[in-house]
Every structure is written in structure tokens, then in C-alpha cells.
């Protein structure tokens, strides 16, 4: 699962077997948990490092920590290890390989903002991950490492249930669905307390910054995107898996580093809420928020899928659309009915058996769905479908005229595209 990339920071000491580093091995690799002199010092250091959230939104971490620290009373920290993005494996790999680096980050960030409790949120379907983390938490308690108690929680695993308002809602005894409304968790979250929610990779970076400082952190990556990024790179590459890359590396260089097949012409950037692009369009762009903004792409949670030359991008996009339609919380009409409609359109198109004028119909439907839900789930689904029709415009025209490519019969390669069977948000 875990592959050595071009940089080794978060991935230092990762074993080929994927076995977790023990507390002792962790201390030998990264050093002991550093003492926290003052919470403000650490927050300032994190801000100076320019660390941004690694869960997908890319918000500045120092700003978020300051906002929570400034609130009155005791706080709560929530570590988000839900990884609902079907094409991502980086959070799971990080937790399974370096559990104590994440737990160090939880301890340090919680102490820095004045949190007395921490929740580590994991998917209920995560196999042995929760057991592994419970054991790591217990080892720390026995060896008296850290002071903030960590609760390992197991949540329903659906696409929208890892959104931060969903986590807070579930931890407060409600459903794991986005509430989309104010107050923000940072003001009034778990148990009505100001709550800091960070992705687990973000917290592991906090643990490294606490040890080595902001200047060290900025030695990797670019000025706009400092540090490293865990990427899940799959498709037509030598070894699909999780890699650590310098942040802001050029897309073309990333593809070379993982030995993508020479004949790869298109990529999916950012995952199921991401966008499809021709390699020629993005090869020279930095894989970062600012670097990809010009082509309306975003790194998301660090997903890059290299479409194999013998696969059909429209068939892959149709699979994604069906998956996202199945993941609708079914709260809003345009999402509940609109996503299955465009999933059906894309499936007909991919199969080369369209009814009527599928391209015109989809164009109209995209405009009728975007921006009309309580959360951004429908917008993300539309964005992915729209980008596929643009990146594979010539194919789409041929498929629409009843001339599908041979590759469409090959089936799909992206994971997690079976119809969802969820509906339990408790």
C-alpha cells in the first residue's frame, strides 16, 4: 500500500509490510514528543510554516488554530481520519504506518488551543484501523506520553459524513450529515464547545513542525505550497499507492516519479469531487491549490489517477456519477433526482446507446443542479461530470453519435463505484 516517494518526512520509517511503528520505533525515528512551552508559540510556528489543511479545502492551519484558541472556555479537538474520498488511501496509510505521529499531533494541537478532550474519527468500515489506534492510545497511556485523552470513534462511512459539520453532528448524538449552517464548529461544536477539526495528515505535520520548526518545514515544497503532501496515485503507474511528494511539484514530474505509462493522455485530479484533464493541459502546472486554479482544478485530498490508455474516461466518469448519486443524503430534490439523472445520461453515453441528444440534455441539467442543494455535494458531482465531457469532448461526440470507443467495454478501474447501500447515518 505504501510506496516510497521522492520525499520522506511523514513517510519516514514506513515499512513495506505496512506494519505500524511502535511507540519505541516512533521515538527512534522522529524523537520523543516535544514539550509544549506555550500554546501560542506552537500556533505561531505553524502559521509561520504556512501549513494548510490536508483534508481537501486547504485552509491555513495557523489561522484556524488561532480562531479556536481565542474562544473562551475549554475546547475540543476532532481529528478527521474518515477519508471518504473513494480514490484516496493516504489517511488510512498514515494512521496504519505512523499512528504515533498523528497522536503526537493531536496531543500538541489540542494542548496549544486549550482542548481537554480529543476525538479521533475513523470509518466504521475501516477494518482493523480502530483496533490499531486503540492499542496505540493505550500504549501511550501506559508509558505516560501526553496528557489529552483521545477517544477513538467509529462513524458511518459515507461520502458526506466526513464533512466537519457531519462529524460534529454525529459526536453530539445526531446524524452524520452536513448541517451546512451556522454556528461554525470553531465557535460552537462538540458539546457546544469551540471545536478544532483537522485532518490526520495535517496533525502529523503539526507534530513535525513542533519538532523541527517552520524553516525546516519550508525547505520542501514551494513558497505558495510549502511542505510535503501525501498523494494517492493510481491507474497506469508502476506501483499504485501512497506517495509523499514535495508540495507544488509539477504534475508532469509527479507522473514521471511514479513511472506513469508513456501513453497516458488523461488524469483525474483531486478525486471524485475533482476534475478530468488532458495531461497536455496540466503537465506543466504545480500540483497545488494556486497552481491548478487556472484550469479549475484542485488537489483535494491529494488524489491523482492516471487513466490507462485502454480505458474509457467517459465510462470512469459515469461510474463516479453513479457513486455520487448513490451517496446523496437525499435531503434536497435537485440532488436526489438530478444526480441519478446525469448518472443515467453519462452511463448511456459511455455505453454508446444514448436516447435523444444526451450532450444537450446534460448541459441543461448541469445548470439545473449546481448550487441548488443545502451542501455542495451536487455541485461536486456536476463539476466532475462536466470536466469529463470537456476533457473527452471528441470521445463524447462519437459516443453520442452511437460510436462508442472499444475501451468502454473494458470496464472501469476506479474503486468504490458500486451502488451505495447506505442510508444509516447514525
Amino acid at each position: 500500500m505504501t510506496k516510497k516517494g521522492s520525499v520522506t518526512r511523514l513517510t519516514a520509517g514506513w515499512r513495506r509490510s505496512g506494519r505500524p511503528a511502535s511507540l519505541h520505533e516512533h521515538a527512534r525515528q522522529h524523537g520523543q514528543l516535544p514539550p509544549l512551552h506555550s500554546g501560542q508559540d506552537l500556533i505561531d510556528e505553524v502559521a509561520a510554516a504556512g501549513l494548510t489543511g490536508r483534508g481537501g479545502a486547504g485552509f491555513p492551519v495557523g489561522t484556524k488554530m488561532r480562531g479556536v484558541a481565542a474562544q473562551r472556555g475549554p475546547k475540543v479537538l476532532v481529528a478527521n481520519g474518515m477519508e471518504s474520498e473513494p480514490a484516496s488511501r493516504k489517511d488510512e496509510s498514515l494512521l496504519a504506518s505512523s499512528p504515533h505521529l498523528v497522536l503526537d499531533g493531536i496531543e500538541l494541537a489540542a494542548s496549544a488551543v486549550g482542548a481537554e478532550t480529543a476525538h479521533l474519527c475513523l470509518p466504521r468500515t475501516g477494518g482493523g484501523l480502530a483496533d490499531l489506534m486503540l492499542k496505540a492510545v493505550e500504549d501511550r497511556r501506559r508509558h505516560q506520553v501526553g496528557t489529552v485523552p483521545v477517544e477513538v470513534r467509529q462513524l458511518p462511512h459515507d461520502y458526506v459524513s466526513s464533512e466537519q459539520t457531519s462529524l460534529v453532528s454525529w459526536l453530539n448524538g445526531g446524524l452524520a450529515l452536513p448541517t451546512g449552517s451556522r454556528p461554525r464548529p470553531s465557535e460552537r461544536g462538540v458539546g457546544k464547545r469551540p471545536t478544532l477539526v483537522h485532518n490526520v495528515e495535517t496533525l502529523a505535520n503539526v507534530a513535525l513542525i513542533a519538532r523541527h520548526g517552520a524553516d525546516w518545514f519550508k525547505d520542501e515544497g514551494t513558497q505558495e505550497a510549502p511542505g510535503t503532501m501525501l498523494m494517492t496515485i493510481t491507474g497506469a503507474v508502476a506501483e499504485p499507492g501512497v506517495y509523499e511528494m514535495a508540495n507544488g511539484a509539477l504534475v508532469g514530474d509527479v507522473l514521471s516519479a511514479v513511472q506513469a505509462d508513456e501513453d497516458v493522455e488523461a488524469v483525474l485530479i483531486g478525486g471524485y469531487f475533482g476534475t478530468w484533464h488532458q495531461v497536455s493541459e496540466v503537465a506543466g502546472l504545480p500540483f497545488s491549490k494556486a497552481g491548478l486554479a487556472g484550469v479549475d482544478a484542485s488537489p483535494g485530498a491529494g488524489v491523482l489517477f492516471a487513466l490507462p490508455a485502454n480505458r474509457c474516461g467517459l465510462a470512469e466518469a459515469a461510474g463516479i456519477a453513479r457513486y455520487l448519486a448513490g451517496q446523496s443524503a437525499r435531503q434536497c430534490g435537485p440532488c436526489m433526482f438530478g444526480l441519478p439523472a446525469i448518472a443515467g445520461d453519462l452511463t448511456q453515453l459511455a455505453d454508446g446507446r444514448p436516447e435523444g441528444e444526451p450532450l444537450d440534455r446534460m448541459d441543461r441539467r448541469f445548470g439545473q443542479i449546481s448550487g441548488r442543494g443545502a451542501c455542495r455535494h451536487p455541485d461536486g458531482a456536476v463539476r466532475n461530470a462536466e470536466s469529463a465531457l470537456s476533457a473527452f469532448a471528441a470521445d463524447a461526440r462519437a459516443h453520442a453519435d452511437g460510436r462508442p470507443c472499444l475501451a468502454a467495454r473494458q470496464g472501469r478501474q476506479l474503486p468504490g463505484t458500486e451502488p451505495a447501500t447506505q442510508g444509516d447515518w447514525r
Partner: protein
Amino acid sequence: MTMKLHVDPIACAGHGLCAELLPEAIELDEWGYPMLAASVPARLRGHARRAVSACPALALRLTGNDDRGEGGPARAQ
């Protein structure tokens, strides 16, 4: 001043009465859910209020009504 319609997308169940009563500013999508015009001209205020009060799901709101203060929600009586 101009008024604006808002729909609560979770509450809306697509009954479609609003579009019957205010076709000038509300159009239904192909699944029967309302798509709202950017603003409602003052001359349609009465019709807009009737559309709001007719919604069985209480999902429609009108704001920016001049006789109810700026930006406040207007309740149709």
C-alpha cells in the same frame, strides 16, 4: 426596492404551487422543484406573498420587502 425569494432546499418537497402562483419569477425544473429568478419586481409583491403562504412545506421565503424593514423575512398574512 427589489425583493428576493429564497427556498429551503431540504424543506422543499416539490409541490409546485409557488410556480403556479408566480410563474413570472418561479420556474420548475424537470423534477418539479422551483428555480427562482434573481429578484422579484415590486409590482409582483402581492403574488409573491401569496406564493410564499401557499407553500405546504413552508419552504419559501421573501426578503427585502420595503414595508418590513431591510433584508428581513416577509411573512405573507
